[in-house]
């Protein structure tokens, strides 16, 4: 039971990180029906900026801010030069996304090399004992930040002009433009929001596991994409649910079966959802009468 509780906590922690990343996919897919395969690499790059600044002695807040800014700037540049010119084309944005992702990974390798590096963070050595369960303060931080980010997203999406505009563009991009909504600006904002969520997820990941590698862009992409599909691509709440579900499932497989099976389980799940439930757990379709 104690082992189960520990694995559950580990799984939920990883799940929050997946959820942060998955939100970025869902936001973009929801509006443009594009799978932003560069997203995982943007999150990796931002996280590395933060990690290298922490290592070089910058204050924590500055390192985190710089990582977030780096993620946002890369998202803006990619949107402007790799996505906007081919918006509306079914295939081209997916191809440019993969290409841009590889470029980001190569640049990251040039700057930081491909060796695995630590990411020092406060509380990494501390533990809290709650009866038989051993907890890290960082697990509490991950959960708290995850909840805060979910709340933030809810507020943005339901209470602000931007959120309304995002949902309107999702429903009908052309008509949103006719209503005077600056669609290009809304789309850029969506990419930036996605990147910010991703980098927050990456920093939480680095802080909790204290290990980073530039290849995490690829693995992050795959896990978060799977989480997005499980949750229902296009639904940000589904992305949260899918992230938590995948995190817990992977922790259980690692704990009770073998970590060698992780990818097998993950991809079997991805394929099963794509085949049998492509709308995911939360996939909602709004009926529209003429």
């Amino acid at each position, binding site marked *: 039971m104690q082992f189960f509780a520990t694995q559950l906590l580990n799984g939920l922690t990883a799940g929050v990180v997946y959820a942060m990343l998955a939100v970025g996919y869902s936001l973009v897919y929801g509006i443009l029906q594009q799978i932003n395969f560069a997203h995982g690499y943007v999150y990796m790059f931002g996280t590395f900026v933060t990690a290298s600044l922490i290592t070089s002695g910058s204050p924590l807040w500055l390192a985190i801010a710089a990582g977030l800014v780096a993620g946002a700037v890369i998202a803006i540049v990619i949107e402007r030069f790799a996505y906007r010119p081919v918006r509306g084309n079914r295939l081209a944005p997916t191809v440019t996304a993969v290409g841009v992702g590889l470029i980001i990974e190569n640049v990251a390798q040039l700057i930081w090399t491909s060796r695995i590096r630590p990411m020092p963070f406060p509380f990494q050595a501390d533990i809290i004992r709650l009866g038989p369960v051993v907890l890290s303060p960082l697990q509490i931080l991950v959960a708290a930040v995850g909840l805060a980010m979910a709340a933030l997203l809810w507020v943005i999406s339901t209470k602000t*002009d931007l959120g*309304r*505009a995002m*949902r*309107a563009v*999702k*429903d*009908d991009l*052309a*008509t*949103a*433009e*006719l*209503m*005077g*909504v*600056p*669609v290009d600006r809304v789309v850029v904002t969506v990419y930036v929001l996605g990147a910010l969520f991703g980098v927050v997820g990456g920093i939480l990941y680095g802080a909790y596991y204290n290990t980073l590698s530039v290849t995490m862009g690829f693995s992050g992409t795959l896990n978060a994409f799977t989480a997005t599909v499980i949750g229902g691509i296009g639904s940000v709440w589904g992305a949260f649910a899918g992230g938590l579900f995948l995190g817990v499932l992977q922790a259980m497989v690692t704990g009770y079966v073998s970590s060698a099976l992780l990818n097998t389980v993950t991809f079997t799940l991805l394929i099963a959802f794509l085949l049998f439930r492509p709308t995911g757990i939360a996939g909602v379709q*709004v*009926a*529209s*009468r*003429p």
Partner: protein
Amino acid sequence: MADCSTHQTAGQSGTPLLQLDNVSVNYGKFRALTDVSYKIYPGQIVALLGGNASGKSTSMKTISGTTTVTAGEIFWKGELITREPTPARMARGIGVVPEGRRMFASLTVLENLQLGAWAGSKGSATSDDIAEMLDLFPPLKNLVNRPSGVLSGGEQQMVAFARALIRHPELVIMDEPSMGLAPALVKRVFEIIEEIKSRKIAVFIVEQNARAALRVADYAYVLAAGQVVLEGTPDVVATAPMMTEAYLGKRS
């Protein structure tokens, strides 16, 4: 073809609110509009009539800026706006009632109205603006929190009107507002158009229902194969032989 003086006596003099000057639009090799010129004066209802594929919808897209003009110019109050992007054009004071109503289906009626106010002078809708629209369209009062996608066609058409009017535009362009509605609702649509006119808002309306459109219009253009083949006051247009044969049906 009726000359411009007819237009001025029917409406106003001075600078038109919106003017299309010898506009042509090509879709690849297909020419959708050829040397089309329209003038809409403040507070005037101008009808655009014509059969299928005559260039009516392309005219609307040209005004809203969602299609690119091949030749010719567009002016708003004398200012050149030919290359201006859609949101900036809308912000000048144009409201749109799109063909097929085009609700933001997952947004509530209230959110649709708030979205409509985006390009308004104030940026977003005040509670006064919302109240004004609900007074103008009382059936929407009980539907404000309903997703607009589940409303009936008539209700959606009212949302589409309110969404265009809430930003207090100087011109509303409407693409087939009566299409697909029951006869009683079609009558209501044209009452609303007259109500809009009484508020000194100009209307540019594309309609299949030529007879109804001519009843409310101050001026009308008739398109065929992408060209203006007839224009003038409703009397002139309604009695032109080509109209009585083609659109209005022969009357004894």
